[in-house]
């Protein structure tokens, strides 16, 4: 039974590569521990137009029963997107990544949720508690007990 999660991830990787969603591409997936997924916001939202962002997925052997650890990472020429639910250290406040997780979610479906969360945003700002959160945040966003902001944004 050990290794079941790699089989599922293998399938997901095949799907991601053979049947990619618009604006979502695999940047790096060399093993079954960490994947980097690049996303672009497809409509012409002025906050994100022409930009590319990079999501980091970290998997444990409990995947998909437990949620993966997901956050944005910055890199050369790639920044953390501005959003009232995304902290400047890349942590994302989204219930799908915590209490709202279900094992039928996939890397692709999570990426698409985040993509649409960006597409629907019109506020070029960080969460109000950004400075305080980033100063004390745990390394893994999964160790944060987010109080999910309202979903109107």
């Amino acid at each position: 039974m050990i290794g079941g999660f790699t089989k599922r991830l293998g399938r997901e990787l095949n799907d991601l590569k053979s049947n990619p969603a618009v604006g979502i591409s695999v940047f790096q997936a060399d093993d079954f521990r960490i994947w980097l997924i690049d996303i672009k916001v497809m409509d012409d939202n002025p906050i994100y137009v022409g930009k590319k962002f990079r999501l980091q997925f970290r998997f444990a052997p409990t995947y998909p029963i437990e949620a993966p650890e997901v956050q944005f990472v910055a890199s050369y020429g790639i920044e953390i997107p501005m959003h009232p639910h995304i902290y400047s250290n890349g942590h994302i406040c989204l219930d799908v990544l915590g209490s709202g997780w279900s094992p039928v979610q996939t890397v692709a479906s999570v990426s698409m949720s985040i993509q649409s969360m960006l597409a629907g945003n019109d506020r070029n700002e960080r969460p109000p508690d950004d400075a305080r959160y980033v100063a004390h945040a745990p390394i893994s966003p999964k160790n944060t007990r987010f109080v999910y902001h309202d979903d109107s944004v």
Partner: protein
Amino acid sequence: MDEQQHNSASEQAVSERDPDLRALKYVMLDDNLICPICRCALVDPCYTKCGHTFCTLCLFKALSQTPKCPVDRSSLSDADVLPPPKILSNMVNELLVHCSNEDKGCKRTCQRSLLRHHLLESCEYTPVPCPSATCDQFVERRYIDSEKPARCLHELIACRACDVKIPEIEIATHELVCSQRTLKCPDCAVVFTMADIVSHTSECAMARVPCNANNIGCKWVGIRAKLKNHESECTFIALAPVIEKQEDRIARLELENKSLRIQPSLTTTSGMVDSDAFHIFTEHERFRSELEKVSEQLGELEIRHGVLIMNQNVRLKEEVQSMRNAMHGIRHQMHFLLMEHRNWALQNLNSSMITSAAASLSSQTASSSNNAQFSGETSSIGRGTRRENESFRQDVRL
């Protein structure tokens, strides 16, 4: 000790032969038979009260984390997990799969539920214990010849080319790739080792090669030694740069064309969202038309209600009027009766005074005739009253 080792090794081999159903290659797989958790064909499926299907093991693992249906998030306890309909378990058991030894060379496909039997009993590529009683290694079943006496197939044999010692069952595969094996070039007849032959074939002067411009139409084929000579006078070669440039342009235009064709489909990013939006839109339309109907009915009802009240009002008014008339009549009668009563009382007083006077006068006849006249008058009064009463009753009934 030796025997014990042999036993445990063979046990391990048997458990390895138990196929991992999630790693199999399926000949064809319906999306409906895929578990949404492990994304493989359902293994030992179960069914939930909310109508979803999972592998039993996958679902219980998910429920131990969150007691909710992984698909629709409705609350779900272990008791809400039901055995699957018989037809479903039959469908997954009868799925056609490729033998898990396909990579070793087995071409068999069979129903999934029969695969274990195939691997254990008949697959030519399943490792089985070496026939020799003293050897604890395994050989694929195809190497065992039941006609011949049992012997170990792992004895080392020297390769005829490189002299390295190789187990007997592997020697055939080794010889095909042994770097020291010699081979004669089919074109120039020179003998080379396996290690050198690859580089030689790409430069053998006697090998027959086509002109480099054969992709754009030159039909020339000849030995490599004469190729240079041909290319110096080949018109196709001279044209090649021009044609190449053209083809480059065509490819670029095609690419652009394709991306232009894709763009309209971007607006409908996901079919699901589209159909959802459409669904919501039609619901909205339905509600609006229903609302219109209801408000129309409400207006009609209001009018009907108003007419009803007016009718009733008119009738009540008429009734009140007739009551008033009746009361009027009663008042008249009362007045009349009161007057009559007073008259009567006065007359009574008068007559009593007269009788007392007459008594003193002692006129018997006068008094009796007076009495008769009086009684006639009273009876006429009673008749009048009754008539008035009747007319009043008729009024009221009106």
